[in-house]
């Protein structure tokens, strides 16, 4: 059984944070017609309480999720939602529920197991809100997807350009305002209008793109990629170093590829991996290798590979990535995340990585020197 309702009424629904995706998830959760209790913004305390009650060797997304749940329960939530995943994450909901029960919290849990299709989950949601119809759920799903696309498009633009802003914080300011407006949008037209208006505002921000600008792609495990707090704001740190940052793992992208487990998508990734992967590595591992190969072909300067410490699918990917890096002298920086909160080590490595990429650039004929400031489409 994947739904257990709490004893207490009324229901107060909550779910973990991941980047700014609480905006579309909230829209979906509203269809349950009960109060929504967002966990407080991620802070060091979130990690502390999460890590304290987690198994020591579990990966960091588990600890952040648990921290979010505890902080949401403290705020009065009584019904928690957990999604599945392509690795042992799929089992996290059960373990987290057991831990929270041992801690004495009284709550219910909705675990979204199985596929990405709405019909797999509608029954679970109807147990929370019997008035929910398939039609209404479908409509909400489409709206949330549109909202997610707007979010991903705007954030993609920010990633690629924030490093070159003339005035510090200009992009962040517009980005924040965008999030505020998007959060309240409840129809397609408004969402489209907000997206294009803010894209215009972002494009109007004065930037200075240097001649030696670097293009770096970010690949790896999806949670640490998409939750900036968990990766110590690595994208912002790169932007500060004058880097055009590209990331392809987004929720829109995942939905488009059927949760990236669709066999056709995996076959396509393998076909475009330069023979560095021959079979599916599980979760995002195949994607990490294939994407890195494609970025290298496109003339990117380097790739950052992020993973939670001990992440099995990404450890699998690393062996192939190391061979690729060696055979093509293509720079890849590997970063593992756990409960550490000091950015110093990360900054040292990023500084050195960017310096190295620039030094390579100075020599004509060195791999990576062919990249220029060409734009990728924002699709």
């Amino acid at each position, binding site marked *: 059984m994947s739904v257990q309702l709490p004893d207490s009424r009324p229901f107060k629904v909550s779910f973990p944070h991941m980047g700014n995706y609480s905006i579309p998830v909230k829209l979906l959760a509203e269809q349950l017609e009960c109060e929504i209790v967002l966990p407080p913004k991620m802070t*060091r305390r979130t990690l502390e309480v999460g890590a304290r009650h987690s198994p020591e060797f579990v990966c960091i997304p588990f600890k952040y999720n648990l921290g979010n749940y505890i902080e949401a329960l403290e705020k009065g939530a009584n019904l928690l939602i957990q999604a599945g995943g392509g690795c042992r994450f799929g089992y996290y909901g059960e373990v987290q529920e057991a831990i929270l029960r041992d801690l004495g919290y009284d709550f219910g849990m909705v675990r979204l197991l199985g596929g990405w299709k709405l019909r797999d989950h509608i029954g679970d949601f109807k147990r929370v809100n019997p008035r929910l119809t398939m039609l209404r759920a479908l409509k909400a799903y489409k709206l949330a997807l549109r909202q997610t696309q707007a979010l991903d498009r705007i954030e993609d633009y920010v990633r690629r350009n924030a490093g070159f802003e003339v005035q510090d914080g200009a992009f962040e300011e517009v980005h924040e305002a965008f999030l505020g407006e998007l959060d309240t949008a409840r129809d397609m037209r408004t969402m489209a209008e907000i997206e294009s208006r803010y894209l215009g505002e972002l494009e109007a921000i004065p930037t200075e793109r240097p001649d030696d600008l670097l293009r770096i792609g970010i690949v790896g495990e999806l949670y640490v990629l998409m939750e900036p707090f968990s990766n110590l704001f690595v994208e912002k740190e790169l932007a500060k170093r004058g880097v055009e940052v590209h990331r392809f793992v987004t929720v829109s992208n995942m939905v488009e590829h059927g949760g990236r487990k669709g066999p056709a998508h995996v076959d396509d990734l393998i076909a475009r991996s330069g023979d560095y992967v021959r079979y599916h590595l599980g979760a995002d591992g195949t994607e990490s290798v294939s994407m890195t190969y494609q970025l290298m072909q496109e003339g990117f300067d380097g790739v950052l590979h992020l993973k939670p410490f001990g992440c099995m699918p990404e450890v699998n990917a*690393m062996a192939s990535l*190391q061979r690729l*890096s060696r055979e093509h002298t293509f*720079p890849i920086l590997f970063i593992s995340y756990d409960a550490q909160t000091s950015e110093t080590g990360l900054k*040292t490595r990023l500084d*050195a990585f960017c*310096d*190295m990429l620039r030094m*390579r650039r100075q020599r004509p004929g060195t791999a990576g020197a062919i990249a220029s400031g060409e734009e990728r489409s924002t699709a």
Partner: protein
Amino acid sequence: MSKVYLGVDVGSISTKGVVIDSDGEVLARSYLWTEGNPVRAVKRVLTELETQVDGDAVEVVSVGTTGSARELTGAVLGAQVVKNEITAHAVGTLSRHPDVRTIFEIGGQDSKIIIVRDGVPVDYAMNTLCAAGTGSFLSSQARRLDVPVEDFGEHALRSKRPTKIAGRCTVFAESDLVHKAQIGHKLDDIIAGLCDAIVGNYLNNVGKGKEVLGPIVFQGGVSKNVGVVRAFEKATGHEIQVDDDGHLMGALGVALVARDSGLEAPFSFGVRDVTFETVGEECGGCPNDCEVVIVLREGAYLDGWGNRCPRGMERVRERICPQEESLAGAE
């Protein structure tokens, strides 16, 4: 007066300084222990360097800092360049060994590998989790064996059959070492085994997946240990070069970066007589509790870091330097 450049490398264990001329020749060098007090160590380095240069003939026009205390030292010295130690080491080593293709570096608390091809650094890695392959591991084992770490090399070279010691992790290594000693392995063999263990750990951990090609230059404090040098030669099958100034490459590198930066500002060795104080405090403004550090020069705010948002610095600065005018307006 001719222009000279100062480079300072403040590591966890040792502090290094050089003064170079515009050709990159080292005019003065200093190497001493940090002893947990980077500011004091830097002042002592300045004193040592000053006695080696002719103050009337040269003028320091640019300063660079590197090493784990580079921010703090940079603020204290008013440095023009603050560079990470990986870049500094690569630049320093390349100036002396333009044909190098692999740089091994083992310092007190960290170790790194830099892969160079055609005179350009193309890849690097740094130990992330574990101190098993670093100098502090060697010195703690030296204490256990009651042998000065400086004599390790000599002992290791005398060994005919190095003891096999698990180098995966300091905890395993230590218990392995104790067992081997208790069942009667010779001291020389155990020390040689430790050198092998360090090298094995380094190559498996830091050097994992990297193509190690000669010429290889080995530097950092541990490179002074001939036992480890020999172990590296055995493991890689390449000759290992150790520069006499190998421990100074970071300082040299950052001095060269300062020289090439084109940034110049007056500098006086008299800065060693100025009082610097650092104060660390948790902000407390939100649950992040950023640990903000503020550097005071003669009691006045000089620099600070550790805050995630501008408010954090304001809050801590107001508490530590209440005499200052409203900071909100000054920011």
